[in-house]
């Protein structure tokens, strides 16, 4: 299977975010093999836009998310209908219809290039499916070191993806970018790998030598960023630590354990699903994380380079492992 070339086949069963996906087309970037979770399978079927429009006809929907480009053109819209589910419209990146229980996804996207619909699949569609299937997601990236997952949360724009990229370049394994599915067990928290897609600034990639660069996998597309498909771990791992990253001031990078519950609650994902069950589950998961997983606040100066922050974190992860 070659990234960027879609072919009809008997079916693929792969996973991400703890969701096993069976599709009628190859989905590059999913993790091969069953995810070792009791969750049912979600089917993904590629259709034309008209089929999604027909399925949505007559919907009494609510727009739960509306994001625009600076010129006010639509970047993404998510509409919810209690009976039909969720329609995700991302002009230029596909249109998607997710059933209310997350069991079925209809997907309408341009054949090429693959990364354009992969972006939406891994950033929006599968996290929504996972949430509807009972998982809980954090707005976090994660890497794996010595058989454990390490997650880090940071506000958008503070360099979370760049730090994640440099962690992989420096020896960690890619685990998830921007959305991390977690399950609370009796004694530990389990994290599920996300889609294998890293979105990197070209200038960050340019800081890497050839060996480090190779750890990130091939470039599969270019937009305002470079889109890479890294190798990944094959299944869920225990979550060993959670770091809240922030950029402030000019003091050296420092760590403390001054973490309060609002930090967990403020960094959950798929905020547009606000059913009572989901909100109660979010609270339980956040409390479980706070009780079970070592959590630390990492403050880096505003001018700290991503490789430096990554090195600092990797040192801590290796000491914990």
């Amino acid at each position, binding site marked *: 299977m070659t990234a960027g070339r879609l072919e009809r086949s008997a079916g693929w069963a792969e996973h991400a975010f703890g969701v096993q996906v069976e599709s009628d087309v190859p989905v590059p970037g999913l993790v091969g093999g069953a995810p070792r979770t009791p969750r049912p399978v979600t089917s993904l079927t590629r259709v034309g836009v008209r089929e999604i429009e027909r399925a949505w006809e007559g919907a009494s929907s609510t727009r739960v998310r509306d994001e625009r480009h600076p010129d006010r053109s639509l970047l993404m819209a998510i509409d919810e209908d209690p009976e039909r589910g969720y329609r995700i419209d991302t002009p230029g990146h596909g249109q998607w219809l997710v059933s209310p229980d997350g069991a079925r996804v209809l997907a309408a996207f341009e054949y090429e290039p693959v990364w354009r619909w992969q972006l939406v699949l891994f950033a929006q569609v599968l996290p929504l499916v996972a949430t509807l299937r009972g998982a809980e997601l954090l707005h976090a990236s994660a890497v794996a070191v010595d058989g454990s997952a390490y997650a880090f949360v940071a506000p958008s724009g503070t360099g979370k993806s760049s730090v994640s990229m440099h962690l992989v370049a420096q020896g960690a394994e890619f685990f998830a970018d921007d959305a991390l599915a977690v399950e609370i067990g009796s004694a530990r928290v389990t994290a599920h790998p996300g889609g294998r897609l890293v979105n990197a600034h070209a200038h960050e990639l340019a800081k890497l030598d050839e060996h480090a660069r190779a750890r990130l996998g091939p470039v599969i597309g270019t937009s305002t960023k470079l889109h890479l498909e890294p190798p990944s771990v094959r299944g869920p791992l225990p979550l060993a630590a959670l770091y809240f990253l922030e950029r402030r001031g000019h003091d050296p990078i420092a760590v403390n354990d001054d*973490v*309060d*519950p609002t930090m*967990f*609650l403020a960094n959950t994902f798929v905020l547009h699903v*606000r059913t*009572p069950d989901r*909100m*109660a589950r979010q*609270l*339980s998961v*956040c*409390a479980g994380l*706070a*009780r079970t997983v070592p959590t630390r606040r990492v403050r880096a100066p505003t001018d700290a380079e991503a490789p430096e922050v990554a090195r600092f974190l990797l040192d801590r992860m290796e000491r914990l492992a």
Partner: protein
Amino acid sequence: MIGFVSDPHAAEAPLPSSVQVPQHVVYRHFAAETVVLNLQTGKYHGLNRTAGRMLELLDAESALDETATKLSNEYRRPREQVLGDLEAFCRDLLARKLIEPKPPRA
């Protein structure tokens, strides 16, 4: 011992002898505080450690008298003082609709 800022108007209403946490209210303990979520309003409330323990015991015991006795033993404080704090706390919880009077058994 109280986890909320007291509502000055709440002191005038009579208190029920037993209370319960309604189904639409869930709470979970974090390291240093308890977060209470009203699923009907979507609002979160934070309780300090002591208030979290009060809520937990109220949920288990229902009767304010018994809860006050247990808290008094646990925290080694005079029962009358604990009962006063507990009643003030209950008034705040009632005002925020995080607890409700428990109906007597038929």
